[in-house]
């Protein structure tokens, strides 16, 4: 796309989904045109982010200033390796999810589909804004609007249960971000005089390590989307949403926006050297470790498939938090890669959960035994997704978990290493029985009527794409690895040895 400058592409990738919203609303009464607009916008967005990736690859420095509402606080964007990685995931998975949604939403005859697709597109704009934000202020603005734009999606059903879920969702996410995150941002502003993302951090030697330690705690708790305990309840609450929402937003976009923000803060606000020596880091690491284990344990006790996946997500997000707080090159590589790997694995699992709901009308795991015969593709995809979450070859999850494990060894965090190993076992215990029982049911299991067939074709295509993605990420991790390595280096990508 030589006829567009990278700056234009950067702005377009943020504005495009909102423009699509206008089209979606205008075409509200023509579902086919409406969905065509969604998919076209998704593909265009993917095209744009791939081009931005290549621009970054060529060492281009692309930045855009929109406006400056308060002196020194600007809405400013810049492409940088971590952001490009995040936008690539969102850009790739948005059209895939749209394809899936068409199958799912139509099979369920869901009401208010126009509102659904419109809010979805707005949420994607917010994700792009978070990904490309060049300072904490811009990031915070889009972070907040991501919460608000996904609220109508979470409460889509409009029932009492949806309303309750929406309350917890909004209460915890807005609550943590207003009380802790905003306080941390204003504190940063006063201590450092800037909110820009700078390699190696913005604090000089002046602030005492105790103040900065408190600030780090505020950041970790404030970024509620990263779901560290005890601020994790919003994620299970959000599961009242239709499955495509849970898939893209609560396995990929929203939760990853949380850990992405955390990584940004660690690398570009504190700097990794500083995080390592702050007095509160160790405590936060243990808290994240405890969250990993507890969430896994709770996941084991859930019979509702989506609830189990939600707790599994909490557990996996805290892996990324651990990697961010360990703050070494290896751990950050692991964390950044895990954002991608978990995204592909978990979205596959959610797609499968939705497919099972559509085809067999089952939400409880205990009633899915023997479903493999009727739904072989779905259950195979579920198996692959589970392997990737657990971190077993030949799936992408094995790379990120490898790096995270190495990082705990390098830093001598034996307890955390034990936590990670134990959690891997728990992952096996709560995920693998589902596909295994589906193919090899216990004798006492109910038999399904032969009328059950696979989910709608569009949904199957989507979940096959993401399942294959898990495998592809195992086989070809090189470019991802290069991208991730570039995070810690100077702006732009370096093709070092």
């Amino acid at each position, binding site marked *: 796309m030589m006829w567009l400058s990278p700056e234009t592409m950067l702005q377009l990738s943020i504005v495009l989904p909102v423009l699509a919203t206008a089209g979606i609303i205008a075409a509200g009464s023509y579902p086919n045109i409406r969905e065509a607009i969604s998919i076209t916008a998704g593909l265009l967005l993917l095209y744009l982010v791939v081009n931005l990736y290549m621009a970054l690859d060529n060492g281009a420095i692309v930045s855009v200033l929109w406006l400056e509402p308060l002196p020194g606080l600007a809405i400013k964007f810049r492409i940088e390796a971590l952001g490009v990685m995040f936008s690539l995931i969102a850009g790739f998975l948005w059209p895939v999810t749209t394809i899936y949604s068409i199958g799912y939403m139509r099979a369920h005859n869901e009401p208010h589909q126009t509102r659904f697709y419109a809010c979805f597109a707005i949420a994607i704009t917010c994700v792009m804004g978070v990904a490309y934000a060049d300072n904490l202020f811009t990031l915070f603005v889009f972070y907040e609007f991501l919460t608000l734009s996904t609220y109508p999606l979470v409460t889509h059903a409009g029932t009492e249960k949806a309303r309750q879920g929406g309350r917890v969702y909004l*209460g915890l996410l807005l609550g943590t971000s*207003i*009380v802790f995150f905003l*306080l941390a941002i*204003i504190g940063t502003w006063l201590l450092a005089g800037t909110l820009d993302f700078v390699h190696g951090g913005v604090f000089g030697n002046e602030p005492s390590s105790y103040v900065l330690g408190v600030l780090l705690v505020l950041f970790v708790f404030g970024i509620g989307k990263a779901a560290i305990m005890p601020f994790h309840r919003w994620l299970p609450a959000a599961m009242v949403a239709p499955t495509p929402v849970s898939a893209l937003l609560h396995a990929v976009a929203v939760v990853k926006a949380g850990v992405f923000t955390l990584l940004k803060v660690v690398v570009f606000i504190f700097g990794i050297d500083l995080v390592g020596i702050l007095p509160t880091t160790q405590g936060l690491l243990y808290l994240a470790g405890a969250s990993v284990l507890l969430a896994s344990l709770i996941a084991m006790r859930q019979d509702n498939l989506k609830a189990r996946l939600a707790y599994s997500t909490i557990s996996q997000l805290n892996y990324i938090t651990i990697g961010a707080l360990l703050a070494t090159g290896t751990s950050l590589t692991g964390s950044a890669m895990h954002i991608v790997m978990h995204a592909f694995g978990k979205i596959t699992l959610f797609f499968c959960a939705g497919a099972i709901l559509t085809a067999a009308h089952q939400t409880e795991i205990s009633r899915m035994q023997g479903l493999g015969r009727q739904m072989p593709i779905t259950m195979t995809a579920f198996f692959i997704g589970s392997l990737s979450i657990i971190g077993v070859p030949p799936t992408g999850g094995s790379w990120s978990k490898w790096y995270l494990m190495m990082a705990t060894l390098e830093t001598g965090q034996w307890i955390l290493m034990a936590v990670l190993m134990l959690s891997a076992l728990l992952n096996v215990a709560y995920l693998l029985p589902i596909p295994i029982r589906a193919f090899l049911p216990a004798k006492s299991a109910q038999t399904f009527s032969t009328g059950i067939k696979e989910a709608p074709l569009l949904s199957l295509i989507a979940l096959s794409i993401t399942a294959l993605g898990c495998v592809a990420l195992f086989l070809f991790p090189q470019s991802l690895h290069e991208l991730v390595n570039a995070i810690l280096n100077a702006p732009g990508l370096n093709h070092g040895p």
Partner: protein
Amino acid sequence: MLTHLPILQVIVPLMAAPICLMLRPVRLVWLFALIASAMVFLISVALLQQVVQSGTIIYEIGGWSAPWGIEYRIDLLNAYLLLIISAISTVILLSTHTSIQSELAAERHTFFYVAYLLCLAGLLGIAATGDLFNVFVFLEISALSSYALIALGNNRRALWASYQYLIMGTIGATFILIGIGLMYVMTGTLNMYDLSQRLPEVSDSRTVFTAFAFFIVGVCLKLALFPLHMWLPNAYAYAPSAVTALLAATATKVAVYILIRFIFSVFGVEFSFSHFPLQDIFLVLSLAGILIASTTAIFQQNVKRILAYSSVAQVGYMILGFSIGNPAGLMATLLHLFNHALMKGALFLAVGAVMYRVGGVQLSDFAGLGKRMPWTMAAIVIGGLSLIGVPLTVGFVSKWYLVAAVLERGWWPVAVFILVGSLLAVIYIWRIVEAAYFQLPAPGNAEVREAPLSLLIPTWMLVVANIYFGLDTRLTVGISESIAKMLFGVEP
């Protein structure tokens, strides 16, 4: 002509009020009042420009020079206040022709405009004058006309609310008058600038302390600082919606202005904060006000009362701002004066639209309105987000400066209190949102339609202003920064 702008500011609405009585029909009265208010707005814009370009304007009434004659002294702070009051009043007047039809008996419409203009003249007079006794006179003009405005409501409880306000307001005015009297005894002058020169000589006397205390308490009654706020929720809830919007957006602001003027210009920061434990008192009261009033708002069933208690909490933010005692804090107060006027103006006008269509503003009346009145409800959501302080709205600008000012002092716990206050705002705003978007409409509400454009346009003017001034803060931040520097005696 241009030299007479400061007095015209007050004269125009004051003269327009009795003329209203001679006009027929009501539509003409409305148009006349609107034109008067719009003229005042233009004058205030011109004044602000003059002040920005050439500094403080001094106008001597009748050519008698101060301190013998009455002097109007317009500096940046006065001009800023005049702009807020006249702008909000004009936008509200745009909507009144429609909104009072359902809330007032037809024969009272003319009186409404008379009282409205008198109230406006009083508020503008307080903000324009440089004479202490003039402040008291205009305070009474605005107060008496607002008692009448509140009592005009169809609801009989409005009478009781107005009576309550009358009693409390009169006590407040008496305190203020005692304060003024004592100051006059000690210094022999009523000119504020003159006072500020002469007070330091006598500032150690017990009489001045007493004068200060009486005056501050009186003003705090007027601005409904917790725990002197008891009159406010009923007055706001039972007054006609346009009146509530006017009082919420301008009357409390003017009282805050008087407080700022006295603490910073007349008595000086040194006296107010060092000789007098004002900082501790205000800090405790404002924080208690923020938390208690916000919590009370959560438990209200009447949406106007929810917003009324929210106003009490917001007054807490304003008082908290300048009691921090640094220029950044004062700046936060000044920003919030402007920003809160925009938020509450928009919210009360939107609530007025609901009143017009549904006939009630209980939470149950809002059920299902998200579908029936989408534009009105969208206005409430955006106004509510601004009240919460979501980025890119004016509410965020005030909150940012307030928290930054508090942290500059190193008061981390206070910052947490402020932010918890916004969380409480999330809860009470979301009760309205949930009622509007999640509940099915009551059987009687099935036929409700969107509000007429004559209500929607003024509402949305303020809603757009909420966003515009959240994005382009050059005007508000620039002016309040200059004012803060001026009042703290540092040259800008």
